[in-house]
């Protein structure tokens, strides 16, 4: 069972939001062509900016493009991914790192084909130390051979250092910004925190964009939507008139049949 509302790329792949995620996927894919990037960490300045939603939908979108995708819940403080995908989250990443266990045991299949999930596992008392450990580093190296793309959900970079640690282990860091709610200063601080550890900031995903305030970015969607709707309506109308025509035709044929032959 997957969460209906947040995992929109899976539940409603034709929606405008899913289209937005596909645009994001295309941007990532085309930027990766030269650089061979496959591991990404997604973080934000503050909590509640939509990291987990973004990363989950992005992973689903990549899986839909026939890529083997692994989604790792590296938010060892407030794990949420397993809830979103409706899978048990008691065992996972922390068991691998703390117990030096084989990672293949803990990776779970999701409802989405090609998408695999590694939940957080037991919430540890020392998340930053676990993430900074050599075992973690080795795990990321090992697991990246098995998948086309690996996405890691991280805690907010503004509050804890976990995301900064993770960003050193991966090829690219994606920063999620909640449009309209994040101040320029907070975003600047987040960037600094990542730049300080020499993270490769891949780019910013502007989340929860208000349609009205960003009218010009929606023109495409408006047109797309309208034409799409118009097309459907027209088709329906045409079908209606066609069926009416058929009815009339059959009626006239019928009456002709009834007419006495001269």
């Amino acid at each position, binding site marked *: 069972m997957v969460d209906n509302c947040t995992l929109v790329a899976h539940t409603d792949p034709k929606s405008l939001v899913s289209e937005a995620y596909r645009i994001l996927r295309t941007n990532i894919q085309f930027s990766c062509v030269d650089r061979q990037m496959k591991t990404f960490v997604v973080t934000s300045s503050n909590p509640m900016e939509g990291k987990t939603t973004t990363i989950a939908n992005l992973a689903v979108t990549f899986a839909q493009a026939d890529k083997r995708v692994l989604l790792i819940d590296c938010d060892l403080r407030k794990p949420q991914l397993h809830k979103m995908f409706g899978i048990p989250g008691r065992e996972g990443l922390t068991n691998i790192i703390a117990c030096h266990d084989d990672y293949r045991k803990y990776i779970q299949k999701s409802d989405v084909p090609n998408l695999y999930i590694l939940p957080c596992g037991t919430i540890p008392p020392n998340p930053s130390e676990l993430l900074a450990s050599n075992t973690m580093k080795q795990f990321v190296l090992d697991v990246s051979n098995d998948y086309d793309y690996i996405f890691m959900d991280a805690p907010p970079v503004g509050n804890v250092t976990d995301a900064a640690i993770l960003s050193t282990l991966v090829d690219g860091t994606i920063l999620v*910004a909640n*449009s309209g709610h994040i101040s320029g200063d907070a975003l600047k601080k987040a960037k600094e925190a990542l730049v300080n550890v020499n993270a490769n900031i891949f780019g910013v995903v502007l989340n929860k964009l208000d349609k*009205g305030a960003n009218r010009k970015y929606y023109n495409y969607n408006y047109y797309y939507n309208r034409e799409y709707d118009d097309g459907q309506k027209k088709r329906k109308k045409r079908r209606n008139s066609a069926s009416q025509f058929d009815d009339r035709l059959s009626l006239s044929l019928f009456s002709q049949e009834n007419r006495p032959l001269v």
Partner: protein
Amino acid sequence: MEELNLKEILYIILNKWWILVISTIVLFSACYVWTNYYVIPEYSSVTTLYVGKNVDQVGIQTTDLNMGASLIDDYREIAKSKLVAYEVIEKLGLTGMDADTLTSKISVSKRGETRVIQISVTDADPGRALDITKTVAEVFREKVIEIMQIENVQIIDKAEMPTHPVSPNKNRNYLMSILLGLAVGVGVVFLIHFLDDNIKTPEDVEKCVDLPVIGTIPVFGIKGGRYING
């Protein structure tokens, strides 16, 4: 400063329309209360006088016509002089009113390009406005004849008892307050817009942190119990 096009400006204003509504309501009600309960209504009484030229001068010359324009200032100064004021006060027995107060109530203007001048007196008491107007006209006539050596000064329209107050002009005040309210509202909206440094558009991100925006995700999910999408 950000570049804004007309559409965006309109959108910014319409998006916060309630600020306009509030500022308009506040200013209008303030104006309403002020106009109706604080301002003392004033009445104005008007009289007109014809100030001709001396009969012994024959014919009209262009200099006379040009003179007409500047003579109005002379008449005004006379009508508003202390000389006239003291006499009016004395005649009407207006104790407690000094000459300056009285002259400030008097206004003198010319009716078009004629030799007719109009004297009007504004006062909170319509009866007193009438009395002062009458007396000022009389005294003014005497003094003009005396000072300017003009014999032909006639009162045309006698002062009448004013029935409606001339001030406050309620409709004008209301209109002004509404316009001012809208203007203040627009000002506040723009102030809020430019003081708000929150990231709203991809341009904001690029300007603020110089990082590429690789995707924009619209609002979706459950809002107010309704599923919204895109």
